[in-house]
């Protein structure tokens, strides 16, 4: 669990921010989030092993085994995220959603291509490229704005 770092007002912030507590009330030993996920993955793995004792259906064992493996990877991702990403003390709140909607439309059209023909999948490329373009342009603009705010 992250502890937010308070280091003064952020860009665009109101000056009168309430202060954060000196010491959050924490019990001695905490259950870590990655432990929860890893524990669940271990339960899944145990059940796969149990199944292997009963049957030798490779397809079934592969499906359930890969599912358990995926959850182990998820536990690893949670653990890694906690170590690698220190809390910046603030969270960005994104507001641009055009690329999201366009991407959803592109995926839908691509799938409808299986019904109506491959030409529709090619049509799906249009909103997809538009989504990528919108996102790239906005990020470039934002990086420039940040550079200006810091350096200018």
């Amino acid at each position, binding site marked *: 669990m992250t502890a937010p770092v308070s280091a003064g007002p952020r860009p665009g912030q109101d000056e009168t921010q309430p202060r954060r507590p000196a010491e*959050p009330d924490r019990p001695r030993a905490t259950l870590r989030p990655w432990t929860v*996920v890893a524990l669940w993955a271990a339960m899944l793995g145990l059940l796969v092993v149990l199944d292997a004792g009963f049957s030798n259906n490779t397809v079934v064992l592969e499906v359930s085994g890969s599912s358990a493996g995926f959850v182990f990877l998820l536990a690893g991702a949670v653990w890694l995220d906690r170590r690698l990403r220190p809390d910046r003390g603030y969270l960005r709140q994104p507001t641009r959603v055009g690329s999201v*909607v366009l991407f959803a439309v592109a995926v839908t059209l691509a799938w409808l291509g299986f019904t109506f023909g491959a030409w529709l999948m090619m049509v799906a490329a249009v909103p997809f490229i538009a989504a990528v373009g919108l996102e790239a342009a906005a990020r470039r603009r934002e990086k420039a704005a940040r550079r200006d705010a810091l350096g200018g």
Partner: protein
Amino acid sequence: MTAEPVVTAAPGQEETDGLVVWLQTTDHKRIGILTLGAAFVLFLFDGMLGLTMRAQLARPGQHILSAQQYNQVFTIHGTGMIGLAITPFALGLGVYLIPLQVGAPRIAAPRVTLLGYWCYVLGAVTLVWAFLTPGGAAAGWWGYTPLSSSIYSPGPGMSLWVAGVFLAASGMILQGATVLWTILRMRAPGVTMLRIPVFAWTMVVTCLMTLASFPSLLTAMGVITAARIDPGLLASNAWNLAYENLFWFYGHPVVYVMFFPFVGCVAEVLAVFSGRRFFNYTGTAFSLLAFAALSMAVWGHHLFISGQQVNDYFSLTSILLTIPAGMEYFGLLGTIAGGRLRYPTAMLFALAFIPQFLIGGLTGIMLGTPSVDYAVNNSYFVVAHFHYTLFAGSVFGFFAGVYFWWPKATGFLLDERAGRLHFVLMVIGANVTYLPMFGLGIKGMPRWVVTYPAGAGFSALSLISSIGAGVIGLAMMAFLYNIYISARQKKPATADPWGGHSLEWLTSSPPPRFNYDAQFPIPRIRSFTPALDLRERQRERQRVTPSQRAGRPVTDTVTTDTRAYRDEG
């Protein structure tokens, strides 16, 4: 919607309203409401399809629906209820409540959450389109091959069904991922994993199951797609069996995805309206993990009659479900035991959930015995079983949650009298509809039949069941009426109209843009019931005399989680 960087208002100020603004939101509360709203519309749509089915089956030999129409109707009723209504109810509740309950100002990856909503909505549109196509998808919600291949289900309807299922499920995977990440990585200081509310624990396991099993459905849709491009693939029966395993590897956990959040609603409601903390919190949390893990290992009980698997393993795991399920019930009953019960509508739905879901659960254990399954599988006994768990169970739990959190989300109260009417009609309707179906199954009535012979002995019970369905329809109308009059009366709701236990009851109704702010701060967290703790501390302090109070430091008020934030364009 422009690509210009938008500098929105200072923290705490509400976004403006309007449909265009709503559809561009990245506020998890609005995404949650959009998801739940769309799901409710589809729930009513699929419910009307169910009513049509019951009208057709009320008497033998009717022609309200043709055989082709009937097969299409039950396909969309099943796929729609599961994929477009109840699963989005489950994840939508998580999207709305989780950041509030763990003290986060926003959900993890808001745009991924929004993408999940859009994939779900576009999937729903595609599925309704599949339904409306003449000769459309009619292979049931299972979509078994070879029936779903292009040989036996020619035409665009089936392909649209596959696309719609894929899209809607993808949307739910994305929302499951962001809700889970919020719980795991964005809790406020002091909110440890063993201090999140019970509802949040049910969302943890729901999202874990979603991530671990829904991809199997996507793969299964890939198998159908391959079989629709090249039906010769299915010359080897191994593919049919592979499809069944892939489908049910998703198909069983999904019913738990459609159960856990609603038992979470029931748990919260029971605790608050019994006036006591949830009983056996830690045991329940670990039971939920075991319950969810086992539920990933029982799917083969849907293949008992395939003759192509070792049934003993899946019978073992299915029956073992009794243990964590029993522990959950222990927690629910232990919570109300010794409590001082109040009975608003939310509590009525929560209390009814307990015995009704139990009927579904107990008959499920019976079905987990192959020898019983051989006799009653694919008959109306199974239809009764899963409607008891899903409708008389989960939907009741859902309404408990709706009546409970409605004031928080909207700022006004639902009418209690209309709520009681809704409740009574639901109880009568659910039981009159589904109890006779157990009898129909034992008498030998199969599933998926547009009609039945007059002399088969199914007529009386079918008629009773259909009358019950009509009562369910009236119940839904009562609920819609409740929303209508409540919206007109607009009885304002305070931050905590019920005396709630968890964090969301400490912020306004509806909450500010980033959930907690200077006016509604997060207090010091010491347990999984921060609101209850705070009320008890305040009551305690009021009892202390002024002379005793002097010199004692005030240690617990007005602290806050400062997540400063900045809007980016």
